[in-house]
């Protein structure tokens, strides 16, 4: 690799159940303004040379929905390329545009208003093929429920354990100004929530959420111009699993294990159990935190249950942000995880700061039951 990619600035809106007072352009402008102020960058020749954006046409209910944000991302007579997947994939591609030598400085943005559609499940229902899997009513929630059942059966993890993860997530979210669901909950309150899709209770799933994120990425050479606290992307990996849920081992981590192997090979990480000062997992649903911890190898294979019982999440600083389960829209789960990792490595995580954090892993997922997985490793 010719050089390293630095993340020089990060901004997030507060994530909210419905930003009814803003168009997606308005949400984006708030975070773009912030990263430009942090770095002093403009869109001149030696400023931001291109934008990589993350959004989805169905969520935006707009064909070529990046056309609606050209003005805001400064791409009038400039370059903008849209990644239509989880925001961690945006990080992946934005880093490539710099490593390739094509850009020196890029603006990475992501936006999603899950509240805009009358039901986000109607959006994700459309990810299924029109012949077999739509007619049976699948959407990402019901796909996750099949995954949850499969994983809970294999691991023996109980509803009570999942409830405790939700309680814990709320405690950390209360320390994160960007987090959406910060009200403390008791185990009993979590368990009392009605089933959304058995075994997933309403409290076990991420809330409907609106928000936007922006970052500035730059070459090693240029980064020092914009920040004295660069955070380096040292590992990147992603992988697709198959489509039909019945053909996948939903209790396992086929795609995530491979994505992680690729990122660890790049970052030269031998033992992920000890390599990271903090871990950020896209836990759209409570069961995904231990399941994906297994996939990332931050706990022993098939050891998720024991790991929860042993206090693994606290010991390894997993999801100090509160995690996705406290509120990020579907398109931004992985990008919010990277954002948290960057804030931690910059020492800007306030009351949830991991002292002296040097290296972090962030994970994002796209598709039903985490069909496509992305792993990003950052170091300072």
């Amino acid at each position, binding site marked *: 690799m010719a050089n390293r990619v630095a993340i020089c600035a990060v901004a997030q809106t507060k994530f909210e159940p419905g930003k009814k007072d803003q*168009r997606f*352009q*308005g949400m984006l402008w708030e975070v773009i303004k912030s990263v430009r102020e942090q770095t002093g960058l403009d869109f001149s020749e030696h400023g931001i040379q291109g934008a990589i954006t993350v959004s989805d046409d169905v969520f935006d*209910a707009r064909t070529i929905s990046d056309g609606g944000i050209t*003005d805001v991302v400064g791409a009038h007579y400039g370059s903008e390329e849209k990644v239509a997947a989880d925001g961690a994939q945006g990080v992946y591609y934005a880093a490539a545009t710099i490593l390739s030598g094509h850009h020196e400085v890029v603006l990475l943005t992501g936006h999603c208003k899950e509240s805009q*559609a*009358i039901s986000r499940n109607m959006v994700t229902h459309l990810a299924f093929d029109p012949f077999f899997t739509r007619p049976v009513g699948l959407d990402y929630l019901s796909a996750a429920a099949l995954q949850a059942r499969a994983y809970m059966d294999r691991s023996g993890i109980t509803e009570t354990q999942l409830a405790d993860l939700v309680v814990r997530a709320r405690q950390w979210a209360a320390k994160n100004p960007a987090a959406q669901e910060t009200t403390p909950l008791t185990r009993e309150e979590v368990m009392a929530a009605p089933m959304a899709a058995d075994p997933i209770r309403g409290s076990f799933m991420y809330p409907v959420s609106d928000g936007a994120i922006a970052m500035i990425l730059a070459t090693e050479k240029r980064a020092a111009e914009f920040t004295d606290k660069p955070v380096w992307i040292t590992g990147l990996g992603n992988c697709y699993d198959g489509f039909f849920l019945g053909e996948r081992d939903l209790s396992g981590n086929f795609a995530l294990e491979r994505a992680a192997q690729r990122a660890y090979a790049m970052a030269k990480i031998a033992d992920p159990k000890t390599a990271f000062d903090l871990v950020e997992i896209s836990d759209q649903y409570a069961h995904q935190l231990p399941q994906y911890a297994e996939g990332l190898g931050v706990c022993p294979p098939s050891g998720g249950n024991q790991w929860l019982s042993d206090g693994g999440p606290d010991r390894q600083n997993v999801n100090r942000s509160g995690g996705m389960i406290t509120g990020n829209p579907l398109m931004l789960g992985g990008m919010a995880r990277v954002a948290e990792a960057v804030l931690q490595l910059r020492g800007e995580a306030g009351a949830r700061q991991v002292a002296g954090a040097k290296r972090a892993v962030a994970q994002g997922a796209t598709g039903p039951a985490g069909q496509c997985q992305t792993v990003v490793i950052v170091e300072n």
Partner: protein
Amino acid sequence: MSNEKKEQELIVSRQTLSIPQRFSTGPVMGRFLQELRDNKRIMANKCPKCGRHQLPPREVCALCNVEVTEWDELPPVGTVRDYDIIFYASPDPLSGETREVPYVECWVDLDGTQGDAPFWHLLNVDDISKVKRGLRVRVKFAEERHGTTEDIEGFEIIEGAES
């Protein structure tokens, strides 16, 4: 066995897919739509840096990448810069109904507009052969207004007032 190879019937699965939406208008487009609905006023916002008007108003000036904060009322009268006569009947994606053709789209420089900011709407005419550039036109507001594009029915030609 018959020598004729029977052609397979290829079944096409017809589905109508739609998801009801609640689009936020935000403070900028929201103000524009509210002024149309309540006061029949056309409000453009104006870039504080380059002075270009925006119609409809947007949050940010594309040319300068700064927040657009100033507002001007523009008159409902202007000059046709360009027009398009549409003969192809396509569905309106918001209603699903097929449009009646022909209809005329036009780009109008409202009087007093600063910068390159034509206002885009329909030009309602009884005879499309009358349509040309330079026509003086006036906005016709709808009787019932709801804060949407349809609060304007379209432009109408101001007879005898060619520029």
